């Protein structure tokens, strides 16, 4: 199910919104260094291990009032290491947590998104595409507006430690798939 992997380079973009694995630079957040595996995510200081290329998030300006509880984050996760990287979720200053989501067909045949409990595997030296209507990240429990043209930061949980990425906040009328909070046991 972790399909949709394309070769790195095929989606080279202009705006590489990126960010080094936290463990690599000794910068940023304190909890980064507390994760023993953090340093392994970092191939070298110049080539961040996991980046989000062309990352963007749907702005809350485009959402109907009152429905502003979460938002999708898209782009191309790019793994510069020779080891698969598993992304299982994360944190963001903009919300309560970050989840990995997939879009599936439900019993009535409509497409719904739901939490992907396994997370995403970004293959060694490869990419993992996050797109509306497909696999994506979700910032849950938004605590602030995400205004078009601003940036949102996410700290992703990976099996090689936390990785900070940023996404450009954009107006987007799509990504309104109905949401299934937890897959019911019967499905």
């Amino acid at each position, binding site marked *: 199910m972790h399909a949709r992997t394309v070769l790195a380079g095929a989606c080279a973009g202009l705006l590489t919104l990126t960010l080094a694995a936290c463990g690599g630079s000794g910068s940023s957040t304190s909890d980064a260094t507390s994760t023993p595996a953090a340093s392994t995510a970092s191939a070298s200081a110049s080539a961040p291990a996991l980046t989000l290329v062309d990352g963007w998030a749907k702005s809350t300006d485009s959402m109907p009032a009152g429905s502003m509880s979460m938002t999708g984050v898209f782009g191309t996760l790019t793994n510069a290491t020779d080891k698969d990287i598993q992304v299982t979720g994360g944190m963001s200053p903009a919300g309560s947590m970050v989840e990995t989501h997939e879009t599936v067909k439900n019993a009535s045949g409509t497409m719904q998104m739901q939490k992907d409990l396994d997370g995403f595997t970004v293959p060694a030296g490869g990419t993992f595409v996050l797109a509306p209507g497909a696999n994506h990240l979700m910032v849950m429990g938004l605590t602030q507006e995400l205004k078009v043209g601003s940036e949102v930061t996410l700290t992703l949980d990976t099996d090689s430690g936390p990785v900070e990425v940023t996404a450009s906040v954009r*107006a987007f009328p799509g990504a309104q798939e109905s949401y299934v909070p937890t897959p019911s046991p019967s499905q």
Partner: protein
Amino acid sequence: MTATTTGGPARRGLLASAAGAAGAFALAGWSASDGSPRGAPPRPQDADPATSVRPFRGEHQGGIADRPQTYAAFAALDLRPDVDRDAVRRLFTVLTDDIERLMTGAAPVTDQEPELAAVTAGLTVTVGVGPALVARAGATVPAWLAPLPAFSIDRIEERWSGGDLLLQLCAESPTTLAHAQRRLLTAIEPLCTLRWVQRGFREPFEGEHHPMRNLMGQVDGTVQPEVAGRDAGLLWCGDEGPAWLVGGSALVLRRIRMTLDTWDRVDRLSRENAIGRRLDTGAPVTAPAGATATAIADLNAKDSLGFHVIDDGAHLRRAHAMAPHERFLRRPYSYDDAPTEGSLSDSGLLFAAFMADPVRQFVPVQQRLADKDLLNLWTTPVGSAVFAILPGARDGELLGERLFA
């Protein structure tokens, strides 16, 4: 036009008028960033016009001094009331990224139709700002950045006038244009409301044998300042104005309706008299037979009865610069929209002209035309707008970034 293919400075049309001080004019040979003068063989990168790309980064924006593409759309927007300085900066963040992607064929990050963006077709998107946007960014508004004075010939309609933000989109494909316009308008929709869109076109087969002709059939855009050389100061804003505008320009956009129903009644001789140029070649009526459009007009020539050969009310005479600074770069497009009820056409000219200072350079000419111009019998300005055209975004810079300096 072949003006710049002869090498060296373009040939100049120096009118033999009393006001010869107006000096030299280059005859339209577009050069600048896409490199090719009109009619010149395409450069290798233009081998497939579908994927030809014009530079986004640089000292100046594209869509000004470069050869006009065949299709254009001018979209004016107004900032929403709650847009403050920070929101203006966010606006330029989105515009810069999306325009750069569209111009290079990469498609904006939110684009679900990237196949349409891949056909760049020489797309340029040129961003201009009105006084309200400059004020909200907290920057100095140049004195000329205001509506033009009302002229006696004007029948200006609000729906074609004014605006806080301008996007001029030009491309060789109308599909490319429609896609880029739609993507940009949706991208900034939380910050702006759409005020008007005006669409235009030029001659798709424009070249040596097919000059740009407006819908009255006249060769249009012949006499131009030499903006790639000695007249660059007429086009680009310099140190005399606000620092954020250095390398920028000003756009005057006049929507001028042509009353083709009455024009149809006019014979060709009278039509040539109205302009002072021949219809077939675009040459001045004073030029010898066989002359081309680039021939020099003789404003002093008289006929056997002592009348000026170029009529005292001819558009050429009235529009001709009476002082060297009364010149600007014309980059016009025709429009031909759906006729309103009871008429057979809604046609005219999107008179787009770029210059460093509209009040100084454009207003005296427009005033002369309002006072007297045979063309006024068949043309009526129905829309009017003035925008400050931002300087180009240098590497790593946002469009409009210097507004926040």
